[in-house]
C-alpha cells in the first residue's frame, strides 16, 4: 500500500509511514487546531496496514515527539492501542519512544504509554544529541 509522508507544519508532526519497510515514524510537535482532522487519515492508513500484519510479520514504530498537547496525547494513546492489538494478533511490533534527556514530561509520558502495551515491545530511548 501507499506510504504516507506528511511534512511537519508549525503545529503538527512529520509523519513518515514507510509501509514497504515496515517502519513508521512520527516526529516533532503536535498541537494542531483540529486533532481529529490531522490524525484521522493516519488512523485510516494505519488500520489498513495493520489489518494485513499477522504472525511472521514485524513492524517498528518510532515516536520522536518533542511536545504534544493533551488532545494529541489522546490520539497517541489510540495509536498505541492499535499497535498493541496488531501485536496480539501475532505480529512482532516494536514501539520506540524517544525523549529529550532533559524532558521529564515526555519521558514520563513514554513510560505511561509503555506500561499499557501488553503485546507490543516497548523501548524507552533518549534522543541522540
Amino acid at each position: 500500500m501507499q506510504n504516507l509522508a506528511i511534512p511537519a507544519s508549525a503545529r503538527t508532526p512529520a509523519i513518515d509511514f514507510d509501509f514497504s519497510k515496515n517502519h513508521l515514524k512520527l516526529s516533532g510537535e503536535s498541537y494542531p487546531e483540529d486533532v481529529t482532522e490531522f490524525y484521522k487519515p493516519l488512523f485510516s492508513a494505519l488500520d489498513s496496514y495493520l489489518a494485513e500484519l499477522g504472525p511472521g510479520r514485524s513492524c517498528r514504530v518510532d515516536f520522536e515527539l518533542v511536545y504534544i498537547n493533551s488532545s494529541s496525547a489522546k490520539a497517541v494513546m489510540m495509536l498505541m492501542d492499535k499497535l498493541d492489538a496488531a501485536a496480539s494478533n501475532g505480529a512482532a511490533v516494536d514501539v520506540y519512544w524517544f525523549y529529550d534527556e532533559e524532558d521529564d514530561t515526555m519521558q514520563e509520558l513514554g513510560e505511561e504509554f509503555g506500561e499499557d502495551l501488553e503485546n507490543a515491545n516497548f523501548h524507552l530511548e533518549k534522543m541522540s544529541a
Partner: protein
Amino acid sequence: MLARELFDIRSALRNQGIIFAYSGYVTEAVLSGVGDAIRQKLLFDDADTKTTRSVFAVFVEQMQNMIRYSAETGRAGAAAPSPNGIRYGVLTIGQENGEYVIHAGNLVQRSDVERLRLKLTRIRDMNKEELRALYKEQLRGDPGEGSKGAGSASWRLPGAHQSQLNSILLMWTTSTRSSH
C-alpha cells in the same frame, strides 16, 4: 483611548510582572501567533529548556480550553454559548520571583460552577502519583455526557472531560518541573 491611558495600562501590567496580556476573542490563529511570540521571548530570556517547555505547554492547554469552552461568546445576551461562536478569554503570562506565572480565565455558565469546583478541587489536592493515574484514566477516556459514541469523532473529548484532562496535565507538568 489617549496615549496616557494606554501607557498606564502598560505600566500597571509591568508592575505586576506581566509580560504578555491578551484579552479578547481567542482563536487558534491567536494561539499560533501568541505562541510564537512567547517562544521567541523565552529564547531571548535564555530561559532553560525545561521552563520554556512547561510555560509553553501550560499556555497551549489553557488557551485551547478557552477556545473550546469559554461560555462568553460574541453575542450579547445570548442564553447559551453558540457552538460555533467565537469565545472570549483572558490570559496573562508574567514573572514573579524568577518564576513564570500564567493566568487564564474565561466566563463559565453558573449552572456549571459547582460541578467544575468539585472537579478542580479534587484535582488540586492530588499528589503527583494520583495526578498521573487520573491523567491516564482520562486519556483512556470514557466519553462524558454529550459524546458521540464509539465513532471516530467521539474522541474529540467533550466539554468538561477535555478541560479536566487539561487541568490534570497542567498540574502534572508543573509538579514535574518543580520537583527539581
